[in-house]
């Protein structure tokens, strides 16, 4: 049987179980008395063991098996949860993670687990391995003592049959003791088992090679016995012989049977608290992408239909057009909804990461996570993890101060890191806040000058926000010391460019001494967006609504100039203006001179800029199509959209336009 077809499912579930392991270990660390957490950990390790063994990943199976042994002792309170143990278990989980990821990338678990296995072994001296080496080759021979003779004699007197049954268990059987138990169990229904070789206790402990002998007193025939026993899997009846017998006295009740029932001594208290398992279907993400594309096509054609209806004034078409509009809107919501996954997926890994970092740096950090249930498009989720990791590392490494420093400043020793997500209209806002030292403006200034990111002249004109914003510039890193955790030369500029590539933006607010707050704003989905269609000269452009703050009109005379920069006064604020026609180099603009112009106020990071356009056409839903390989990454252009009349319009990317 090929296991490859199960690989994806295996990986997915393995990752889930690893997540559970991590989460519950953290819980256990907080509260070592949490029995529920131990059970959960045990269950996750156990399921992982079964899965990986089936897939033939023996190392994963072995490691989880050994983990299980320790966990079992923990569960039965034979050992206590100590820091050492928690470190060890975390190490195991890390090793498992590495192996599972190795399986994902190269289809082999490839990892040296001998070190960890040794650690586990040292922890658990009386390790009960998978293979138990018993003395082999002991020949079983039935020897009857006086007591047995008595018993048999009485049975004979009462016309019962007495059989000596030799049972052999298949060599590949993994749980010989259980098979033996089943044999005993069946035989008891037929009569009374008076003796066995080796003794019941040894059979129970699997201290026999492959066969054992049972003496049964019964009123059934040999055939009947053989039939019953052969129904048990992996068991073969070698011989059934009558025991004819000798002398004796009175019979007594034997109770080897009760001994066997004492086999079972393990409790089965594993009532998981997991109530939120709902019925789900796992679908390949590419199928969803395809579905989304199809919906996109539908939306395009819907807009075309609307346009035809409007230009031709076909009232008969009206109703249908409206109906299609409604249906396609619903369809779009559903498809988008299907693609949505809770951000929990990304957040989940952070408690562990924060714990490890805090430990490494000797800081105490309380991580607060809010809005884990907030949903984001699957593609965005996949991409957002790295930037978030970067920001969190930054906060812990550079933001939150050391214990002493915090004490000196009169802050609580424990730093707080708050990670929250929420939906706002068509966007998702993710906040990373800390109560650390904030961003040192002077440091930023001198660094920016030193690195030649800005000139002294430029610096003089900048307000605080713009200065803080400099930390996102390429080649900027304030950490005076490069640590292992952050500041590996990859700066926040990477974070910004990543988020911009997701059509989002990131901004920072900082209060020196009180902490900093990074705000990430992302669109709900990447495929279909609301946009404002504008006319620049003869050309039509789409500006994503997410970037737009407001629109206003302006008379040519109201445009002022400050230091060669066109500006306007909007509600007592000076708003810098940009002529889109100039930036986009639209030809033949002379024909479109007019007194009245429109201004689209867009937000770029923390700044507002007014874009001058000739005409506002209206708000419309557009499907983003990529420009293809050749035109990919043209600054200022996010893609193209097909309009209702079939023409193509470019979508402006405000983040990179100027």
């Amino acid at each position, binding site marked *: 049987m090929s296991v490859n077809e199960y690989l994806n499912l295996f990986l997915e579930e393995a990752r889930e179980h690893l997540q559970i392991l991590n989460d519950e270990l953290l819980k256990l660390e907080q509260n070592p008395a949490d029995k529920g957490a131990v059970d959960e950990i045990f269950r996750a390790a156990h*399921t992982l063991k079964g899965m990986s063994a*089936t897939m033939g990943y023996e190392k994963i199976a072995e490691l989880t098996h050994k983990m299980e042994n320790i966990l079992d002792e923990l569960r039965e309170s034979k050992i206590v949860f100590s820091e050492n143990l928690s470190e060890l278990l975390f190490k195991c989980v890390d090793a498992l993670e590495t192996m599972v990821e190795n399986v994902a990338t190269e289809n082999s678990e490839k990892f040296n687990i001998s070190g960890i296995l040794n650690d586990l072994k040292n922890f658990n001296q009386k390790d009960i391995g998978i293979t138990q080496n018993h003395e082999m080759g002991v020949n079983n021979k039935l020897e009857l003592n006086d007591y047995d003779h008595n018993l048999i004699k009485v049975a004979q007197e009462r016309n019962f049959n007495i059989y000596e049954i030799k049972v052999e268990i298949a060599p590949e059987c993994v749980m010989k003791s259980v098979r033996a138990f089943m044999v005993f169990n069946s035989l008891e229904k037929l009569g009374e088992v008076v003796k066995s070789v080796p003794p019941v206790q040894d059979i129970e402990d699997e201290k026999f090679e492959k066969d054992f002998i049972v003496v049964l007193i019964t009123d059934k025939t040999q055939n009947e016995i053989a039939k019953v026993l052969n129904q048990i899997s992996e068991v073969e009846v070698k011989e059934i012989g009558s025991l004819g017998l000798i002398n004796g006295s009175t019979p007594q009740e034997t109770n080897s049977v009760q001994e066997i029932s004492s086999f079972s001594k393990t409790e089965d208290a594993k*009532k998981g608290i997991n*109530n939120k*398992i709902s019925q789900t279907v796992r679908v390949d993400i590419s199928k969803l992408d395809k579905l989304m594309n199809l919906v996109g096509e539908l939306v395009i054609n819907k807009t075309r239909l609307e346009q035809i209806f409007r230009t031709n004034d076909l009232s008969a078409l009206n109703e249908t057009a409206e109906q299609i509009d409604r249906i396609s809107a619903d369809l779009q919501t559903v498809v988008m909804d299907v693609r949505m996954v809770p951000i929990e997926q990304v957040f989940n890994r952070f408690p562990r990461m924060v714990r490890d970092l805090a430990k490494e740096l000797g800081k105490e950090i309380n991580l607060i996570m809010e809005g884990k249930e907030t949903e984001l498009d699957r593609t965005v989720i996949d991409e957002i993890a790295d930037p978030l990791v970067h920001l969190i590392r930054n906060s812990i490494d550079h933001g939150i101060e050391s214990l002493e420093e915090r004490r000196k400043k009169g802050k609580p020793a424990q730093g707080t890191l708050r990670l929250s997500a929420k939906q706002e209209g068509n966007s998702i806002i993710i906040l990373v806040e800390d109560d650390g030292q904030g961003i040192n403006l002077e440091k930023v200034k001198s660094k920016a000058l030193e690195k030649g990111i800005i000139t002294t002249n430029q610096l003089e004109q900048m307000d605080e926000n713009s200065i803080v914003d400099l930390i996102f510039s390429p080649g900027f890193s304030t950490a005076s010391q490069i640590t292992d955790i952050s500041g590996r030369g990859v700066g926040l500029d990477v974070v910004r460019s990543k988020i911009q590539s997701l059509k989002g933006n990131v901004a920072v607010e900082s209060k020196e001494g009180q902490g900093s707050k990074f705000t990430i704003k992302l669109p709900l989905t990447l495929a279909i967006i609301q946009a404002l269609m504008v006319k620049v000269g003869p050309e039509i452009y789409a500006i994503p609504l997410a970037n737009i703050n407001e629109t206003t009109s302006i008379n040519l005379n109201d445009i002022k100039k400050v230091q060669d920069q066109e500006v306007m006064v909007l509600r007592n604020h000076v708003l810098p203006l940009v002529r889109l026609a100039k930036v986009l180099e639209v030809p033949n603009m002379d024909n479109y001179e007019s007194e009245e112009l429109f201004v689209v106020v867009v937000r770029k990071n923390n700044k507002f800029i007014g874009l001058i356009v000739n005409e506002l056409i209206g708000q419309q839903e557009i499907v983003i199509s990529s420009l293809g390989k050749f035109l990919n990454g043209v600054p200022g252009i996010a893609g193209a959209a097909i309009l209702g009349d079939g023409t193509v319009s470019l979508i402006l990317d405000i983040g990179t336009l100027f």
Partner: protein
Amino acid sequence: MAYKVLVVDDAGFMRMMIKDILSKNGYQVVGEAENGQKAVKKYQELKPDIVTMDITMPELDGIGAVKEIKKIDPNARILMCSAMGQQAMVIDAIQAGAKDFIVKPFKPERVLEAVTKALA
């Protein structure tokens, strides 16, 4: 008519595997459940001829589920799917009325043999 099977395991991966083995060999997998509680419910709904039952599961484990199902239908045929090292629990399950057991990782032949024997 093909025998109806209910497959119970908390790992979807395991369920898929067992399902494949059985359906390729003429059995009809009529239902799946990922925990003991659902298994009991499904058993009542579907009245399968045989159930394959994992032991370690959330909500209600396999042994608990065997007990519940046996209460409903004393003739229920249940095949335990255990992992190595669960001897004690397998015995509990058999005492509770399970017909047979298989040990993960299992070979298709073993699964089929056990199912056939349990149905005999």
